[in-house]
């Protein structure tokens, strides 16, 4: 009996010690995002942590969900139990995560979404959404390619390969929609599309097959940098096309892509400023928690930008 009482005492003491440590921070904020397997999210996580360190007194609990929707929901449920003050959320999918946001609303925990949004019109409260305009990014990529084709042929014409992202993913749909909206305005440009699942190995493989089946390739647009980097490997190995002669455009402005732009292998990539997105969202959440200030607009979209060799210094990351 004494032993049991003793153990209970120790547990209670240890528990209060842990609580005491947690209590040393003014705010605890949960960050839930799809997966660390993509460099993009690792960068976003770092930006949030940097911002938290800069503001001071804020603990960030950051958890990845292995790209698994049900796992993301249980992570958010755990965060509610832990009693976080606010949640920064990158939903894996537009709809499936809604029950978790409902639970957050019920627990009176404010939530700000970053990068990807929740389905419009869903019966849940989101303090603010900070994101990129993926559709506009796709349009920008198309405008750049049209401009370069016009320089090459004197008029906008040629064959363009579009490598699309994972079927069904929000950014994949939006980027492709924006890209095609612009490029379809030019009847002399032929677009051939195929998915490469946002992956480098698939980008290379699909490009190899396009190289075989297409007599002339003037431009390639990859809906993320991973895919365009794979496509460049395929072009370099082909012997049929010279990568310098093909207009190549990626998306995300990853350090590796920026390096290839500097070297002249890749022509352009689209920068969506993930760091700015993440820190803006984080600031809005903290401001609301500390001062009760609601953001001016419910949706803040950060304008994407085409990065080429001429404006490399405007990219957020470096290499």
């Amino acid at each position: 009996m004494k032993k049991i009482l003793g153990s209970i005492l120790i547990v209670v003491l240890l528990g209060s010690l842990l609580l005491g440590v947690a209590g040393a921070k003014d705010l605890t904020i949960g960050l839930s995002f799809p997966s660390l397997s993509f460099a993009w999210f690792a960068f976003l996580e770092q930006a949030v942590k940097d911002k938290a360190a800069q503001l001071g007194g804020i603990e960030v609990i950051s958890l990845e969900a292995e790209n698994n929707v049900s796992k993301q929901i249980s992570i958010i449920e755990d965060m509610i139990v832990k009693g976080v003050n606010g949640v920064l959320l990158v939903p894996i999918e537009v709809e499936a995560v809604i029950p978790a946001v409902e639970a957050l609303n019920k627990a009176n925990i404010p939530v700000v979404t970053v990068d990807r949004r929740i389905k419009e019109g869903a019966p849940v409260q989101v303090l603010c959404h900070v994101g990129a305009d993926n559709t506009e990014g796709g349009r920008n990529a198309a405008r750049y390619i049209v401009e370069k084709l016009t320089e090459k042929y004197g008029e906008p014409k040629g064959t363009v390969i579009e490598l699309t992202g994972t079927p069904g993913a929000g950014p994949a749909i939006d980027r492709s929609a924006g890209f095609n909206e612009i490029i379809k305005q030019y009847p002399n440009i032929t677009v051939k599309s195929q998915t490469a699942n946002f992956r480098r190995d698939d980008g290379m493989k699909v490009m190899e097959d396009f190289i075989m089946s297409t007599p002339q390739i003037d431009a390639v647009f990859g809906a993320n940098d991973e895919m365009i980097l794979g496509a460049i490997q395929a072009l370099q190995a082909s012997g049929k096309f010279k990568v310098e002669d093909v207009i190549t455009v990626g998306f995300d402005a990853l350090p590796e892509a920026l390096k290839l732009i500097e070297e002249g292998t890749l022509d352009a990539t689209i920068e969506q400023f993930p760091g700015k997105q993440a820190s803006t969202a984080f600031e809005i959440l903290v401001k609301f928690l500390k001062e009760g200030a609601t953001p001016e607009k419910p949706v803040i979209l950060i304008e994407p930008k085409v990065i080429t060799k001429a404006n490399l210094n405007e990219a957020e990351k470096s290499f």
Partner: protein
Amino acid sequence: MPGLTEENVPFVQRFFVFWDRVGILLAFLVVCVIFGALNPVFFNPLNILNVIRQVSIIGVIAVGMTFVILLGGIDLSVGSVVAFAGIIAAGFQVKWGGSLFLSVVVPLLIGGGIGFMNGFVSTKGQLHPFIVTLGSMSIFRGATLLVAQGKPISGMSPAFRFIGAGMVGPIPFPVILFLGCVIIAGMVLKRTVFGRYIYAIGGNEEAALLSGIMVERYKISAFTILGFLSGLSALILTSRLNSGELVAGQGYELDVIASVIIGGTSLMGGEGGVYGTLIGALLIGVVSNGLNLLGVQPYWQMIVKGMIVILAVLLDKLKRRFRTV
């Protein structure tokens, strides 16, 4: 029982005997002819080399998987092993000194070591390898992220790039590696005691055990071979992509197991072989390449692949039923 002559053997039974010998090869050739007729580029020698090179990454693993499935086992962790061994290779190339020797040897040893552990735990612990390798699948995906700290590692040396992107005359080096693995594995399975015992154990484990074969040792060896070849596949992939990728190998287990099964190796063990696996892997590669050349929506590729797998297993099942009639 009266002597079975050509006339009184039922047609279905004869069909399955025939299918057993050359069926998969025939199906493969028919698919090739169809794609070739629809798009002449298909039979372009460059395209043929393209397909074999694309297949080699999955194919090398499938050779190892043939050993494991012949013994009635399964391994779901191969994709994660590819990612982990790949990130280690890239690490030695880019971050930890750039030694070509270490960046080739260490991933192979790690692959073999993981395979050994899978085999050891499942045989000595008497656990189904499905469960054990499901666990290691998660462990090594996590370990990959841990080592890489969320970022791909890129920028291999020219010597390392030869493994995946080099050519020997007109033949891509990965193709040589792949076909080399097939030939060696084929000889091991057909011509050595080791190979004969693998078929014996797969056919009837209890009988093999009673006749004094060290069953556990053979099972552990098969898993080790598979792990080693997964490491080799990781070297080819990392070298080709010029990058250690975090999502590398995701979903490979399905293509690998499908290659083995389509190639006629029975999931029950004891029957099949590595030449069938070669054709099975090529069939999957050709379907994907052919549909890409025709510009077919990618969704169809997944549907077609799934149907081929089910058809292959169904034929295997029917073969067994009619053989025992």
